[in-house]
């Protein structure tokens, strides 16, 4: 049974249609990556799945429950978590407060979750008293992911988590994302660094003008000559 099923999504801004029957699915313990050229609708697909953009048609279900009518906040309560590409931490709050705010809607004790996140991202424990705005780009992204994980989501959505970080930091972030996946969470991410992202992807979606062009395992997409030539620069 697939955790997230987004089928035949059609959506856009005003009259401009960005998504043309785009379909995305992710399962627990899996990483799905959406790649594609600029303007292909990658981020728009994420927004639509998270409910920040209304669908004209199509369906989205999480754990076999229809969620396309829910607000983003309600989707968080259903087990979705979203890490935006920019402004994804509270810069004036300490790392620890960022995590606490991530778990704001939880009524139960959040200390266990917080400790798990600290063991997943040891650097955050070291910097827990520091304001998130003072951290480096890569550390900030870890705070952002940590904040999103505080609700103990079943689906973690990342919008270009490696935008603007060095290749070294990118590798580390991807390692962390694999660890997150290994805890049984479904990970859906949009990536600009297509090659590296597909290397860790269980499923890859290549979007072109809002349509699914290729869908396969990450490995198979990397091996496909047409995909390599057209989208991965040879």
């Amino acid at each position, binding site marked *: 049974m697939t955790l997230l099923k987004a089928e035949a999504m059609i959506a856009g801004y005003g009259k401009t249609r960005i998504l043309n029957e785009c379909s995305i699915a992710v399962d627990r313990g899996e990483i799905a990556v959406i790649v594609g050229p600029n303007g292909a609708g990658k981020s728009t697909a994420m927004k639509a799945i998270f409910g920040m953009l209304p669908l004209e048609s199509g369906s989205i279900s999480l754990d076999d429950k229809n969620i396309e009518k829910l607000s983003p906040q309600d989707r968080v309560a259903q087990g979705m978590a979203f890490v*935006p590409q920019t*402004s*994804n*931490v*509270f810069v004036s709050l300490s790392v620890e407060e960022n995590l606490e*705010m991530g778990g704001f809607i939880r009524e139960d004790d959040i200390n266990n979750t917080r400790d798990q996140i600290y063991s997943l991202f040891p650097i955050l424990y070291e910097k827990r008293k520091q304001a998130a705005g003072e951290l480096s780009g890569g550390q900030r992204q870890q705070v952002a992911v940590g*904040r999103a994980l505080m*609700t103990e989501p079943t689906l973690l959505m990342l919008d270009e988590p490696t935008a603007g970080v060095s290749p070294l930091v990118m590798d580390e972030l991807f390692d962390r994302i694999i660890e997150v996946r290994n805890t049984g969470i479904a990970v859906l991410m949009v990536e600009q660094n297509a090659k590296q992202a597909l290397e860790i992807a269980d499923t890859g979606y290549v979007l072109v003008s809002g349509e699914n062009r290729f869908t396969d395992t990450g490995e198979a997409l990397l091996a496909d000559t047409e995909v390599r030539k057209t989208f991965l620069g040879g």
Partner: protein
Amino acid sequence: MSNDILNALVIISNYILVPGLAYGSQLALGALGITLVYAVLRFSNFAHGDSMAFGAMFTILGTTWLQSKGISLGPLPTALLALPLGIIAAILLCLIMDKLVYQHYRQQKSTPVMFVIASVGVMFITNGLVRFIIGPGDRAFSDGQRFIIKAREFKRMYGLSEGLSIKMTQGLTFVIAIIAMALLFWFLQRTKTGKSMRAYSDNEDLALLSGINPQRVVFITWVIVGTLIAIAGVLYGLDKSFKPFTYFQLLLPMFAAAIVGGIGNPVGAVLGGFIIAFSEIAVTYAYRKFLIYLLPEQYEPDGLMQLLSTDYKFAVSFMILVAVLIWRPTGLLRGKSI
């Protein structure tokens, strides 16, 4: 000779330090309210001064009623007993104005300047209400013991020719302001609700993603701001006297305090409050007597040795405000840029 130095120090304490601490506390409380509204609701609230008059007015009405019943607090001003009434009135005023005015502009996602203009309207309405209910005149409503330390007793005790006097209202202002600020900072730094306010102020979209309810944040902000408004208004009125127009005039030094410290930054508001208060007092004080004690006789000054007449005290906040906006627009403690 050493007595001369002590006398000079007493003069400075009596005319600058003590009044500066009291006035600074009042400005700091006012600036805190302004800065909180700016940080969370994202506009400069021009109705702040007149709302202070509104809260103080209800405290005065309560005080008069208590006095007519023969209830008093002994050496402390009766107004302290009536302060909760003023706080409730100020909170209600803030919440009602939010419902009637600001909420509409929030839903429209209006620009900050629209909010500012709307708050000017709220200012005129509040101002009219206050004048209508209690009148435009001066009102002294402080009772109880007048002084904590009297100048004459101080002179006798220490055998100095200069005396230090501390008014009860000055001491109370300082103590209450410190308690109020400590509670506010504890709330913002330590409680989940306080942190959610800071988170909302920091990044509204991310706060929404985290499930922080904006309506609740707005409500709590107005409750805190209303409380600060009433306390600041009453303390100022007790220390000086209550006159609706002076509260409108307080807007400038309070805004200057908030901006100098870094608007949106509560610590900055407190720092700015004291900076503005001490500058105003230090620049308009006549140093003649102070210098007579310190300088050898042949250099004794003839004039008052006053940099600016007290009539110009508002110019001081204005000059500091302009200087900060030119050279450090985010304020001393790096608030948001205006």
